[in-house]
């Protein structure tokens, strides 16, 4: 087991975003957390990364309790985040954005090789390497955010709503890439998505969230036929 | 009462009047102003010029002084509608420096020499000085406090509180941000103008440095220490910052340090002021939680 979260609670002042969610991610797995917007998915990833304060709960990563660890220590321990809406550094160039991903870790990875590999994966980034990230389109920024997270060769990749605001064609490409990274490069991925069908397609297990609590979990093959998913998204089914 | 005590008391009352104006702008309407001394100065210079060059009596000039101060406040308040937060703070600092520079360098305003020979206030054929002038100032302070009190109970005041708390929500309740911010600005600068007129006729000599940026900081410190938005804060703050330096006269060298250090400690540990929500004074006195104006 690479990551285990027990009884997570996140609150913004009085607003309960997440109340009592538990899950685990095994090494080499691709796990999805799905749910309509407002279900608390982004808060969970923020809490795992350490950039959103946790009201209650425990996070165990790689055998260590990291609940009280600041975000930068978690990052240095091998957790990387692709944030919602990419959040690239707008006034840094593409290359500089990538280099922030290996801050204080340049010597741990074969940097030139990684960069070459990433530019091969995302040729558009190679073309724009000296442009400020703000000048990139939404889809390009999303690719940059993924590359920035991958450059340090992370152990666990957290991906937040990567499909949001992307053209359908790009969504397919990104999901294919994530699937490939997981199957062929052994990368462990925790995917948070509104796009339920596409993420269920590529992941092995999933958790279904509704207004801050987990309402279903299990193998994606079973979940895909589960009426509760339709219910969570469309409010129909039982009634 | 000795002349010394009367002098201190008169200045405290004048400052309290000016800080009441600042309270309307900052405390009630939430518009940060770090240049309030400029409007204090505009009032004082207008009164001084009307008295010395225009040969107006204090009473004849007073409505004009308040009107002109308010109008200049309206004019200079316009930038505050375009900028927010820290930009507004810098803009008001800038206004203070510019106004001071105009007083100091334009010959019409007496330049570095300032304006002297301002006559005393006459009332019923009697020259007001000493305790009589203090009474006059107290009268005006009472009037200003009454206006403030009335403002906090008026719909206009309520609109300003709403704007201070949440501009977007206030607008969704029909409150025009432009109209009510400017209303607060005009009212506040008008009070500063009144204080300026009293100051000019009391000192009988004014110069630009009386209204320089450090004076603005003193005025703000009075308000912050008293507790922004509280009706009585200007009085409390003016008394504390007016009396303390006098008590510390024996160690005159440390006066200013004490003063600035107090401001630093207040803002660092009690940003709400002595009469602010949850302050130690409130807890001590077991005051009830404040109402809208408090």
């Amino acid at each position, binding site marked *: 087991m690479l990551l285990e979260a027990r009884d997570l609670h996140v609150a913004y*002042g*009085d*607003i*309960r*975003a997440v109340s009592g969610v538990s899950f685990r991610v095994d090494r080499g797995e691709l796990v999805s957390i799905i749910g*309509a*917007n*407002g279900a608390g998915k982004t808060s969970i990833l923020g809490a795992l990364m350490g950039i959103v304060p946790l009201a209650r709960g425990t996070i165990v990563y790689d055998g260590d309790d990291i609940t009280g660890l600041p975000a930068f220590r978690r990052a240095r321990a091998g957790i990387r985040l692709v944030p919602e809406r990419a959040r690239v550094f707008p006034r840094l160039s593409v290359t500089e954005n990538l280099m922030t991903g290996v801050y204080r870790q340049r010597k741990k990875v074969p940097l030139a090789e990684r960069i070459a590999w990433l530019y091969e994966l995302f040729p558009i980034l190679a073309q724009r390497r000296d442009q400020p990230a703000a000048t990139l389109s939404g889809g390009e920024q999303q690719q940059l955010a993924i590359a920035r997270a991958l450059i340090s060769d992370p152990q666990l990749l957290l991906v937040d*709503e990567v*499909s*949001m*605001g992307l053209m*359908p*064609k790009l*969504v*397919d490409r990104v*999901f294919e890439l994530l699937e490939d990274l997981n199957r062929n490069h052994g990368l462990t991925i925790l995917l948070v*998505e*509104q*796009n*339920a*069908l*596409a*993420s269920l*397609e590529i992941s092995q297990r999933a958790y279904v969230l509704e*207004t801050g609590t987990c309402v279903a979990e299990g193998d994606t093959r079973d979940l895909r036929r589960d009426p509760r*998913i*339709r*219910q969570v*998204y*469309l*409010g*129909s089914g039982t009634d | 009462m000795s002349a010394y005590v009367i002098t201190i008391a008169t200045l405290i009352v004048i400052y309290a009047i000016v800080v009441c104006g600042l309270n309307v702008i900052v405390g009630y309407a939430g518009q940060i102003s770090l240049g309030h001394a400029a409007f204090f100065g505009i009032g004082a210079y207008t009164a001084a010029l009307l008295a010395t060059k225009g040969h107006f009596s204090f009473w004849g000039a007073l409505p004009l002084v308040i009107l002109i101060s308010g109008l200049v406040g309206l004019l200079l308040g316009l930038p505050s509608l375009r900028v927010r937060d820290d930009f507004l703070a810098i803009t008001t600092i800038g206004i203070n420096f510019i106004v001071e520079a105009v007083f100091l360098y334009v010959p019409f305003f007496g330049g570095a020499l300032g304006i002297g020979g301002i006559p005393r206030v006459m009332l019923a054929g009697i020259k007001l000085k000493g305790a009589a002038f203090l009474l006059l100032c107290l009268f005006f302070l009472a009037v200003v406090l009454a206006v403030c009190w009335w403002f906090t*109970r*008026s*719909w*206009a005041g*309520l*609109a300003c*509180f*709403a704007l201070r*708390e*949440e501009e*977007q*929500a*206030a*607008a*969704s*309740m*029909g*409150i*025009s*941000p432009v*109209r*009510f911010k400017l209303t607060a600005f005009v009212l506040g600068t008008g009070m500063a103008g009144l204080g300026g007129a009293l100051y000019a006729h009391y000192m009988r000599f004014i110069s630009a440095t009386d209204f320089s940026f450090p004076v603005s900081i003193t005025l703000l410190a009075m308000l912050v220490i008293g507790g922004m*938005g509280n009706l009585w804060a200007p009085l409390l703050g003016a008394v504390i910052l007016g009396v303390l330096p006098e008590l510390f006269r024996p160690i005159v060298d440390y006066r200013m340090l004490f003063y600035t250090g107090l401001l630093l400690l207040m803002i660092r540990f009690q940003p709400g002021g002595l009469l602010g*929500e949850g302050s130690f004074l409130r807890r001590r006195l077991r005051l009830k939680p*404040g*109402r*809208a104006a408090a």
Partner: protein
Amino acid sequence: MSAPLLEITGLSKTFGGLKAVDNVDMALYSGEILGLLGPNGAGKTVCFNLICGVYRPSAGRIRFDGRRIDGLAPHEVAARGIGRTFQIVKPFAALSVLENVLVARGIRRYGRFSRMWGSWRGRGEKEAAMALLERVGLAELAGRKAGLLPLGNLRRLEIARALAVGSRLVLLDESFSGLRHEEIARLEALVRRIREDGVTILLIEHNMRVTMGLCDRIVVLDHGRRIAEGTPSEIQHDPAVIEAYLGTKGKRHAA
């Protein structure tokens, strides 16, 4: 059918090159609850803000009660009698609950210089504000500072303020988000009661279950466009809506 209370035609809003709202038509009739739905980034909130005057439309018209309101500032839209709530609650934190409602009661005063100098502490005003608090179930908290209320009560307070402003039309911006299940049920009952009192309601919501249960009709947006309109059950079975919400299975799998 009679003329709509709120009528939106060809509404568009572009930011930079991006069309956030693209040629949307919508009509809201007196006495109904209309839901405006859509996944994240669909343009619901922009649409809402266009109605409230926060943004100025790039194209299109908005009519309330037959009169154009597009291009008006937020306080002018409010003055026409449209009340709204905020997705992220915006109470006047330092004021009491009662004073919060009184601010909204002042809607008839703020427009005229001569009317804004009277006192808001009169008995009549207080009683009218208390009646509104009674209606949303906050009467016993009237003296409490608004900033100290829990979220569920703040949502009610916002509805009370919106009712004071708009006695005929109220726009609710995700009033159910962040609430617990039992609070959601209570708030649903409140919205139903308000409608029974004759107030027309436009609801933006992403909680599907709530919307399906409350609304008479639903309009669904996706990528700024209107992709569906109909009764809740029609919407639930609309393939375009299902795709917008659940996503696609991906090209290669579908093929």
